[in-house]
């Protein structure tokens, strides 16, 4: 594990290694293919679409990068997002007669989402760190719990935000600043903060140290449990942030909300060069991973080259190729 770290940091002065270039090359190839197949691919509208829809998974994946770097895993984020979305809608609908349509009720919804996210993350983290249960098992359990809770809240159907409220809240997904929509701005901010935390702050180094070797980190005076707990709480909060922007898009939540988001987020993190076993993480790589995933979908929709039945297969091949590119480089370097 130490070798990967040195391999990743050493060649920075010389030519960047393939582990850095791999995902970037994959993304560039995809962009070229997309442009060649459809002239609308690089249009502002399409780029906005792709970036805005990447934002949900992207924001969650940034949090997931820290969890995985610290040697953890969280399978519950997709269900958690669905549950928080459902909760947010219920609370906002319930508060509507009191608060009326306006900014206070939107803020209330946002606070609910953030608090619920942090609480859900802390609960996962508490069970994993303090009680010492495998992260896989804890989050597999909470994944089922949140999925059932949202189905129960919705009575098996769909929870919908009050129509007037939805119209008022809509700009949070569709509006923006200087022509850049809010999800993209929030996504970018999350990435910048995440990148700084990971590569320049003590927190990021502690995460990597714990993921590398828990015991050594412990003897080096790193508070292992607290750092781990923080990674889960941060991921929970980011799930809340993603939900805040998910709800205004369609104004509804159901049992089918956020299905498989956890796997997409984990896949994006790994494509981006973070090591699944922990010990090394790269936030900007995660962003590339997220973009690769949503761009594949976009390109497949924009072209008629492949039968839609094969979409999943194409996605699988590209994911594996993107990771192979890095592997080979590592073997050589």
């Amino acid at each position, binding site marked *: 594990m130490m070798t990967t770290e040195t391999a990743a940091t050493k060649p920075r002065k010389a030519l960047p290694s393939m582990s850095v270039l791999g995902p970037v090359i994959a993304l560039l190839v995809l962009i070229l293919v997309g442009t060649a197949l459809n002239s609308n691919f690089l249009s502002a509208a399409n780029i906005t679409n792709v970036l805005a829809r990447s934002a949900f998974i992207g924001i969650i994946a940034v949090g997931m990068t820290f969890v995985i770097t610290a040697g953890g895993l969280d399978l519950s984020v997709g269900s958690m997002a669905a549950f928080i979305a459902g909760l947010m809608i219920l609370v906002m609908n319930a508060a509507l007669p009191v608060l009326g349509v306006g900014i206070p009720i939107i803020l209330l919804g946002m606070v609910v989402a953030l608090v619920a996210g942090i609480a859900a993350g802390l609960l996962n983290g508490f069970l994993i760190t303090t009680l010492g249960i495998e992260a896989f098992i804890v989050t597999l359990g909470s994944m089922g719990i949140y999925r059932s809770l949202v189905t129960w809240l919705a009575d098996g159907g769909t929870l919908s935000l009050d129509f007037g409220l939805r119209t008022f809240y809509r700009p949070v997904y569709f509006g923006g600043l200087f022509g850049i929509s809010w999800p993209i701005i929030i996504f970018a901010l999350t990435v910048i903060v995440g990148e700084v935390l990971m590569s320049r702050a003590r927190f990021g180094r502690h995460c990597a140290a714990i993921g590398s070797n828990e015991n050594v980190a412990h003897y080096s005076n790193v508070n292992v449990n607290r750092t781990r707990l923080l990674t889960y709480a941060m991921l929970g909060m980011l799930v809340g942030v993603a939900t805040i922007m998910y709800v205004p898009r*369609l104004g509804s939540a159901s049992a089918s909300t956020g299905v498989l988001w956890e796997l997409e987020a984990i896949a994006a993190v790994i494509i981006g060069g973070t090591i699944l076993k922990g010990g090394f993480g790269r936030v900007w790589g995660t962003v590339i991973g997220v973009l690769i995933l949503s761009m594949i979908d976009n390109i497949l929709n924009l072209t008629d080259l492949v039968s839609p039945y094969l979409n999943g297969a194409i996605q699988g091949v590209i994911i594996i190729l993107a990771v192979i590119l890095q592997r080979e480089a590592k073997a050589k370097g």
Partner: protein
Amino acid sequence: MSYMKTLMAGCTVLALSAGGALAQDTKVIGVSIPAATHGWAGGMNFHAQQTVERLEEVYPGLDFVLATASDPGKQVNDIEDMVATRNIDALVVLPFESDPLTPPVQAVAESGAWVTVVDRGLSVEGIEDLYVAGDNPGFGRVSGEYMVSQMPEGGKIVVLRGIPTTIDNERVAGFEAAIEGSGIEIIDMEHGNWNRDDSFNVMQDFLSKHEQIDAVWASDDDMAVGVLAAIDAAGRDDVDFVLGGAGMKEMIKRVMDGDEMIPADVTYPPSMIATAIELTAVGLTSNAPVSGTFTIGSVLITSENAEQFYYPDSPF
């Protein structure tokens, strides 16, 4: 909740059978359905629960076991449990998938119990006593005929398909047959998986790809929600209307209110589970013959008849 219900029902029966020969006349109907993982299934769960509650009062001699399964494997277990521990006299089953459910349901039929199959048929014919079927080719045909009636001069449409299954294939085949030769051209087709978010993404991409789209066959009301949001966000006014399907209450409401984007809907009622449970109860308690096939047709809903299909209490 279904677990609780099953447990409670189980306890009641245990208590009854412990009470002695009194319980002899009580017949047990097992109902096994997929869990509420999307809108339509949610509506189906709602109607199943309602029907079971109502029939338990109407027929004191009948007892119901309701189990919801999140995957085919779980459904097989449910059915095996029902036979082993509850000794069911009849089984009402909406199979998750045809192939994996065929052998266990066949075993139930061979044990002498009455079998009612709903919506999806089994892979082997002649197992069930009663088949309450939705009409998938008809669903596609009615949708296609409506499109033709609305676009007499033809036009360009895009189609959103469901999860790749036989159901989806039959619907699309029925639709394609109905629009053949009408001048309506399907310029694109992708799977939206009966999911709002997926269909939103697919529709956004269709709008980037095609400059002129005259109408959309969303083929499902959940997908229609995503499609409408995408059209709205793109600010495009070339799309004249969106045709969904299934009969979600919000969509029926829009048809009722004369919304121009949603001028009609085509039913594929989740309440067909209620038909199946009712008919099974009738069959067990009376001499009325109920065996055979009962096909529930897909009906076109327009602003004139929408009121009959509007159930504000249903979650779907």
